């Protein structure tokens, strides 16, 4: 299972890198989204994948799952959701103001507005 996850995470990172290297701003934002998905799945995998009961003493189970990675992922998902939303709005506003979403034309020269 871990190997499958590793391959999946690798594909996500690969796609994210490819998208972030493109010129269109929207593709770059989708790339950052995929990158954070990959990171979250990695966090889940690193906490080791196993079956088990919820980590409550009353469960009296054979095995318990580690709740910490899930808590971390939840936090990280919320943060990346917020950042992506902000980034999308910023991109739209920048497109309105600057008239382009092509990163090549957003380079900017020294001392220019």
């Amino acid at each position, binding site marked *: 299972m871990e190997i499958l996850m590793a391959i999946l995470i690798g594909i996500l990172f690969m796609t994210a890198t490819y998208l972030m290297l493109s010129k269109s701003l929207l593709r770059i934002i989708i790339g950052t989204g995929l990158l954070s998905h990959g990171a979250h799945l990695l966090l889940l995998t690193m906490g080791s994948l196993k079956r088990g009961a919820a980590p409550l003493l009353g469960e009296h189970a054979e095995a318990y799952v580690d709740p910490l990675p899930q808590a971390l992922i939840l936090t990280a998902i919320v943060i990346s959701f917020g950042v992506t939303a902000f980034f999308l709005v910023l991109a739209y*506003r920048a497109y309105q103001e600057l008239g382009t979403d092509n990163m090549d034309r957003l380079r900017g020269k020294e001392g220019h507005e």
Partner: protein
Amino acid sequence: MNNLIILPILIPLITGVILIFFSKKILAQRWISAISSILTIIAAVLLVNHVYKNGIQTMDVSNWEAPYGITLVSDMLSALLVLTTSVIALAALFYSFKSIGIEREKFYYYPVVNFLLVGVNGAFTTGDIFNLFVFFEVMLMSSYVLMVLGGTKIQLRESIKYILVNVISSALFVIAVAYLYSVVGTLNMAHISVRISEIGNAGIITIIAVLFLIVFGLKGAIFPLYFWLPGSYYAPPAPIMALFGALLTKVGVYSITRTYTLFFYHDAGYTHQLLQILAIMTIIAGVIGAIAYLDIKKIIIYNIIVAVGVILFGVSVLTQESLTGSIFYLIHDMNIKAALFLLVGIIIRITGTSDLDKISGLLHRYPGLGWTFFIAALALAGIPPLSGFAGKLMIVRAGFEVESYVGAGIVLMSSLLVLFSVMKIFIKGFWGAPRAYKGEEDAPVKWLLFGPALLTAFAVLYGVGTEAIYPVISMAAETLANPEIYINAVLKE
């Protein structure tokens, strides 16, 4: 257990939340944020005093004992940095009152600055590696807003790049934490340190160390990851630039210092050698930029990079003396960078340009501004008895002691070139024939000068009073040099 620790995080947080409700009442916003900023300084002073008398203070949030819950830890280094942050925030706020503009003030400028302080103070105080990530994000989210607030074309353009770089580095942070968690199975920083010592010198720990260096290096602007900084910091107005230049990169530097003294000191031959090489390259790259540009903002921005290199060189040497020097220099640099950015902001407010070729003779009409700038510039370069001197002296001496002559020599050389780069501003901008500038009459120079003059006065006191401050700083360095002190205080073994 001590609730004083959380006050410098809590006060700005509550202030920020309250201020959101009065977004259109500018006078109330100013008063409330000034008062809360003064309260934060008082809390920070009490905290430093308390830590000095009673050693490291910890607070287990919601009473979950370490290492199970999130622990806030205030050692001397954290407490001092929190105090410096609060003082800088006050100076920048005072400067903002008459310069940032009504439009920005109406659109949540003060709440966002307060949230930025929550993030910065939190990052300095937390004792949990994932909580550090969360406070980083709080700080970054506020910095995105501050950078784009106002919505000019250059701000929009540079914000996109700034956010992109930081999103990537945040993803790397999560990845680094994931690896670390899979190896050590804990997130409490003291507990991580214990577990890593049990594992000892393993290859995977070195990999994680380098990954953390990349993450924090992107935020702290070390070579070759500083590429985003000169463009991004150029865009926002002066007080925001001062907050960014003084605080944000230093949070990255603090995190490198913390992780490289608390976790990753077992394979110092590799990790700290790498850090040292990168620190030296950072100094060189920064100095080249500082000399090359004739734009006052760019010169000071590149000086941030030089300082990051100098501090990290001291950390990489990893002796008690070099760490003392680094802490001395870190606090000095936060203070003096904020002062210089605000002074540069005043110059730009008067002249309407940041191009040195178009500025001259300011000393004639603005002697107060000129001499404040002169003292701040000398302090930046580390001329005794001003504040940069003691830190640099200790870093260089420690560098010679461990026989890394190249690095120590470059630190020395860099001071000379840094002095040249800021004197260039003084000579070209303040000497020469006075010129008339459009719109200079209504520039509230006296009011604006208050913040930077306060910070410069601190720089002088900090330099002259080195002897008196030394025991405090060396206490901070002692904790860094001996991780057991930190571990024992947190885990209470």
